[in-house]
Each structure stands twice: as C-alpha cells, then as structure tokens.
C-alpha cells in the first residue's frame, strides 16, 4: 500500500540516515573515487594530487601481488562465510535451550568477542606456536604432530580461518536474537502436527530466521572480503604472501608506501566485487528469505 502520506512518513523515518549519508559518508566516498584516477603521496598534503586517468587500474592489472591478494581473500571468504554461519547457527540453537546454566554458557561463548581484535591476535600467536603453543601440545596428547601453523605457507590461511571460529560470538548473538523472534505458538502448532525436532527446525526455525540468515550472510561477505586486523597483527601477509589479504595489501599501499591513489583504485575494485556478491544474495533472497510481516521483495 503505497500512498503519498505513507511515502512521506517513510522518508521522514529514514531521514537521519540520509542526512548522515550526505554529510559524513558520500563526500569521503566520492573523494576516494576521484582519487582512484589520481596519484597522491598522501603525506605531501591535498595540494599534490595529480590526475593520471586510468593509470592506477592499468598498473593493478599487471600487479602480481594484486592477484595473490585477490586469491587469498576469495579463498578466505568462500570458506569462512558459510563455515561461520553454520557453526553460529548450531551454537545459537544449543544456547537457545531453556535450562539452568544456560546463562553461563551464553556468557562464555560470547566472551571472546568482547576482547579487542589486537589482543585476540596476540593471544593466538602464542597458541599457534609450533613448539611451545598449547594447540600443538594438545595435539601431541593424541599423537599428532601439529604443523607450524602460522609459519607454513600451506597452513597459515587455514589457521586464521580456524581462529575466526573462536570469535563468532557476535554472529551467535544475532542468531539468538533472531531465534527469540520466532513465536512459540508456531513450535507448539508444529508439535501438535506431530513434527519431530528436525522437521520443526526445517519447517519452522529456518524459514522464521531466514531474515537473520540473510543479514548475517551479507554482513559475512562484506566483512570477509575486508578481513584485516588479525592478518595485520599476526602474519602481516606472510609467510610468502600466503595470508596477503586484499585489505592488508591496500593498507600497505596507502600507509606504508603512501600511494593513496593506487590504494583507492584497489578499494573501488573491491567495492565492485563485494557489490556483485551482495547483489547475487539479494536477488536469490526471494527464493529463500521469508518475512512473517510482509511479502515484499528485497
């Protein structure tokens, strides 16, 4: 039901965001877009920006490290996004049970996401140490000789993916809040129909939390492609560029070699990639995302 009064009300409700977009966000975005066609050694100040046309993009397509960072980031995103979602949903389901002690479990599972990412990274550096770290010592009990996680090019990326599972607390919280929105009446109705717990999960829970899955999937994609802090602190791209994430490469270009124009060009390529994946998810959403409240498409 679209009428002009309701339309006006809609605009009014989103007005704060729209003003914020104009004031704080759009300017910097346009600025970086223009910069992607320029050469700028940032520390020399704004006056030294120089238009270079498509030079940055041409150089990027011949840049070995660009392809390497793209590869690393794609592998990470394609593995970690679905993996973290599945793990988070399972844990959230367990934590959504109503029994004693659940308060404590929720707290424990959430705690890792309270620690600043830098502190988490430093902690895991110790854990992953091949000789002295607790991970390989624990593996040794089972007679397994653990690899040199962060120092071995064939394990480092995997190690970071494994580590990420430790910090899915935020995603769990979001799924928990989604699960809370499922009206109990629906479960009761399904139970009356004789549905087992798996059936209830597939026919009640999944459709009802599909908006939350949709949200986490998109945020996971955006976050996964922009993975930075942990790699910056723990491996700084090594060994042998096996963890050279896209944003890490971009950061080095911008703040270590001061090539902000090049970095901006890189950022807009990443922007396009993330946008494409997001659009794919949005387009597909009409097939699997169910909104209890309306039948509008995204």
């Amino acid at each position: 039901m679209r009428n002009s009064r309701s339309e006006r009300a809609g605009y009014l409700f989103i007005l704060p965001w729209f003003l914020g977009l104009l004031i704080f966000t759009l300017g910097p975005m346009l600025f970086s877009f223009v910069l992607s066609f320029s050469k700028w050694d940032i520390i020399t100040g704004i006056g030294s920006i120089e238009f270079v046309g498509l030079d940055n993009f041409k150089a990027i397509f011949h840049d070995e490290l660009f392809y390497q960072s793209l590869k690393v980031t794609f592998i990470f995103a394609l593995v970690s996004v679905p993996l973290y979602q599945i793990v988070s949903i399972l844990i959230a389901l367990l934590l959504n049970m109503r029994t004693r002690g659940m308060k404590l479990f929720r707290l424990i599972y959430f705690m890792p996401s309270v620690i600043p990412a830098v502190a988490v990274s430093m902690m895991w550096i110790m854990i992953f140490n091949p000789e002295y770290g607790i991970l390989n010592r624990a593996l040794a009990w089972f007679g397994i000789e653990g690899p040199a996680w962060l120092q071995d090019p064939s394990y480092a990326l995997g190690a970071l993916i494994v580590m990420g599972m430790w910090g899915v607390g935020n995603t769990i919280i979001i799924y928990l809040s989604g699960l809370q929105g499922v009206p109990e009446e629906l479960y009761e109705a399904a139970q009356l129909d004789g549905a087992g717990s798996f059936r209830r999960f597939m026919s009640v829970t999944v459709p009802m939390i599909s908006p939350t899955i949709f949200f986490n999937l998109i945020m996971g994609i955006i976050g996964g492609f922009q993975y930075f802090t942990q790699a910056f602190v723990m491996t700084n791209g090594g060994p042998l560029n096996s963890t050279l994430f896209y944003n890490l490469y971009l950061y080095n270009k911008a703040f270590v070699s001061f090539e902000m124009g090049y970095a901006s060009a890189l950022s807009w390529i990443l922007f396009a990639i993330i946008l494409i994946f997001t659009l794919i998810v949005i387009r597909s959403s009409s097939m699997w995302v169910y909104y209890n409240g309306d039948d509008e498409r995204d």
Partner: protein
Amino acid sequence: MIMNHHKWSLGRLLTFLLLIVGAAIVLVPLLWTVSTSLKSPAEVFQDSFFPKEWHWDNYKNAVTAIPFFLFLKNTLIILIPVMIGTVFSSALCAYGFARFSFKGKRFLFLVLLATMMLPGQVTMIPMFIIFKEAGWIDTFLPLIIPSFFGGGAFNIFLIRQFMRGIPKDLDEAAFMDGASRWSIFTRIMLPLSKPPLIAVSIFTFMGVWNDFQGPLIYLNSTTKYTLALGLSMFKGMYNVEWNMLMAATVLIMLPAIIVFFFLQKYFIEGISLSSAMKG
C-alpha cells in the same frame, strides 16, 4: 527449539556435553589471558600455565600508571550519547525501511549496504578533513555526532530484518484504531524489537569501548584520551609489557562482560506475540 524441562534424554545429555567441550575451547585462551595478567615479567614466557606468584599488583599498576579514572570518564562521555544516538536513530531508520514503501526504497537500501563496502583505510583521511574543517579536531564530537545520523548501516540493517518478521496485522490494526505512525513505532515496534535492540546496544558498547583508531586520530590532548587509547601505552615501540597489557585487557573486558551478563535476560524471554498484543 523448545525442550521439555523435566526429561533427561540422551540427546539432551549430548547437547550438554557439546556445550561443555565448546566452552572449554573458548575458555582456555581466556584463562591464559588472565593468568598472564597475574605473572611477573620474567615469568610471562615460562612454560607454566598458572603463575607461581600471583601479582595482583599488576592490576594496581595498570590503573595507576595512567589516569585511569579520567580516561574512564572520557570514555563514558563518548559512550553514553553514542549508545542513545545509535539505538534510537538506527531503530527509526530501520522502521522506515521495514514498514513503508516509497519511491527509490530498494535503491536507497542498496546504497545503505554499499556504504559498508568501501574499506575504511581510504575514507579515513577525507573524513578527517571534513571534521578538521568543521573545527572538531581534539573534541569528542567526531566520535559522537555521526551516531545520531542513522547509527550505522549494520545496525539499521539488523533491526530492519527483525522488524520485517513482526506480523503486519499488529501495526495495521493499531493504524485502523487511529494510532499515529509515531506511536506505532514507539508503542508496538520498539517493544517488540527488544532482542535486536539489545544486540545493537551490546555491539555499540563494545565498539566504543574498544575503539582505538577513532580516538587516536581525532583526539590530540592526552587529557581527552579514552581507555582503549590510554591502555595502549603498555605496548612500547620495541617491546610489549605482556603482563601489564593483559591486565589492561582484562580490565577493559570486564565491564563489557558485566553489561552482557545483565542484558542477556532479554535473550531468554523470547517474544510472545499474545503478550505483545496485551502490552
């Protein structure tokens, strides 16, 4: 998933076992953090998991080495308005996106998502220039004011997803009864959206509490420093005082854990539609 309160089935036992194993995996590194924070510098890198001597004075030193309470005050001056601004304005915008149809809505929503797709590294400097021109450098304003303008795309999106799951009959019935859009928002949508609003408050709390980059760039005077910035002094140019850093990390974690513990009851209650109708 509703499970019966009284029966201990095999599945339930397994569930508990799983939860305990998972909790152990989560806890060991955390315990290690705490144990490191209680060690002497010389003991930090020795093999023992627990400290031989318990150096509680690390905590005292972490608090006294910096003007802890001044930094805490500064953090709260930023935190409180940001929490209010973020929760309220993101709920407002989420309602707009969830319940109204207007021209260009789908495009604007895509723009909303798109604002998250550009790496912060390239927008940081132009942002800084804007705030510089506004004369806001070395004030708390760059860290506070933006939160009143939508409260971040992530939060709007999160709440919007939840609101779209709330049956439309509820607000339409109220609308027919003559309620204004505003009172539908405050009396029906906000109370029903408690779980995502709580999630947003927790994330906002942690975001401000742990933010290093923002205060680093916008604050110049040490008297305006936040806790996250102040505690970083335990990381020197050449070396890290691990025990002190970990004590500081534990200190900075604690309030967030406490906040979560008290807010989490909203994750237990769940939403019962019938009671919402009554309220």
